[in-house]
């Protein structure tokens, strides 16, 4: 339903928070405005009728990214001040020219033919799930998603490798606070249940492995920040296997196609649902573990020690 005032204000708010985040001199303020920008982006996805993207942006873009960046700001604030931007006006002018060209291309674009929509609708019953975005993600363009899992796994193993260069493992920095403990005791089981729901509902409604995995990771980050030691996180066989499990299972599912005479990452219509649901289950766990280990891989900070009791 077109709402020009609402959408116009949303776009202005997006631009304003982005300006505030990128042009502010104080790093902490920049990151806080970036988190606000992420939340507004989630709202924008709702307005664009993309609820899967809204879920993912809220959990990953605003939540986990924000936590990571705040963690980094705590360390980076102590450094020497950095030089001011060089040649800002020339750069802005060139970027404006590029933006003008892109804008003209965007406004002059031809209406795309509706062929893909009909092909997609015709192929949906064979896909094994009834939500279109999940079908495209896991079945029709499953190879792209497989490459995405490769990227995630590579990033996780790279940060693990960098972490192993440290002499001793980073200490478990946490806040010790009774109110936080009570909140976490209530929230952690809820987040686990919600993550399972998002995974399970992903075949019929907005949801799926990525949103569920992000929620799992966020719950685990919350546990870690409140001092609960999660046993699987030290580098060892559990962590390595957990990180690789999603990649391996997805690869196995994709290679099961050639075993039945089909191209890779193609599934027969009657077994597609079972395959996709099981692959998504392992993916959810693996993505959650990957996002969590990307969060915990940060190098330690030599603070004065967390105060509080």
């Amino acid at each position, binding site marked *: 339903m077109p709402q020009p005032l609402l959408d116009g204000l949303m776009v202005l708010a997006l631009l304003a928070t982005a300006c505030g985040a*990128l042009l502010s001199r104080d790093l902490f303020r920049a990151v806080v405005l970036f988190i606000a920008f992420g939340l507004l982006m989630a709202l924008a996805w709702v307005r664009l009728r993309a609820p899967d993207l809204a879920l993912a942006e809220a959990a990953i873009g605003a939540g986990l990214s924000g936590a990571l*960046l705040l963690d980094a700001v705590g360390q980076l604030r102590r450094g020497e001040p950095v030089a001011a931007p*060089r040649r800002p006006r020339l750069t802005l002018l060139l970027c404006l020219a590029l*933006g003008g060209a892109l804008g003209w291309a965007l406004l002059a674009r031809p209406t795309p033919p509706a062929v893909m929509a009909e092909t997609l609708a015709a192929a949906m019953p064979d896909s094994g799930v009834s939500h279109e975005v999940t079908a495209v993600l896991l079945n029709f363009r499953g190879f792209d998603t497989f490459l995405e899992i490769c990227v995630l796994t590579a990033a996780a193993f790279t940060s693990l490798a960098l972490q192993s260069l440290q002499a001793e493992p980073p200490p478990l920095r946490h806040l010790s606070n009774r109110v936080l403990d009570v909140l976490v005791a209530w929230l952690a089981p809820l987040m686990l249940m919600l993550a399972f729901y998002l995974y399970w509902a992903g075949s019929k409604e907005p949801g799926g492995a990525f949103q569920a995995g992000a929620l799992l990771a966020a719950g685990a980050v919350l546990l870690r920040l409140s001092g609960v030691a999660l046993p699987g996180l030290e580098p060892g066989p559990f962590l390595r296997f957990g990180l690789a499990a999603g990649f391996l299972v997805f690869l196995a599912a994709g290679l099961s196609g050639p075993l039945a005479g089909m191209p890779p990452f193609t599934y027969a219509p009657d077994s597609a649902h079972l395959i996709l649901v099981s692959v998504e289950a392992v993916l959810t766990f693996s993505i959650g573990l990957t996002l969590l280990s990307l969060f915990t891989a940060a190098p330690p900070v030599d603070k004065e020690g967390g105060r509080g009791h």
Partner: protein
Amino acid sequence: MDIELLYALGGLGLIVLSLSVLVADPHLLRKLLAFNVMASGVFLVLVGLGRAGGSPDPVPQALVLTGIVVAFASTALALVLLRRWFLVSGRASLDEPGDERGDS
């Protein structure tokens, strides 16, 4: 003007702003923030280029979902590298202390 086009033009504005900050600002964390904002702008353009009106187009949405996750993974890895660089060198930018050219 339909809604996807409006947000796509907003995404263009985000791309212009963040690209100039990405290029001009020597501070690495700000470059990382600019990279993320640019990614969001590109996603808005991607969804805006899809079929306008009628039902939402799932293919760009799946691509953007992939993009969100990959952008986060890149940001996380970049932060690990950035913090390690900061530990080693004490600075948050790649410039040597003596070579700023602050003209214009």
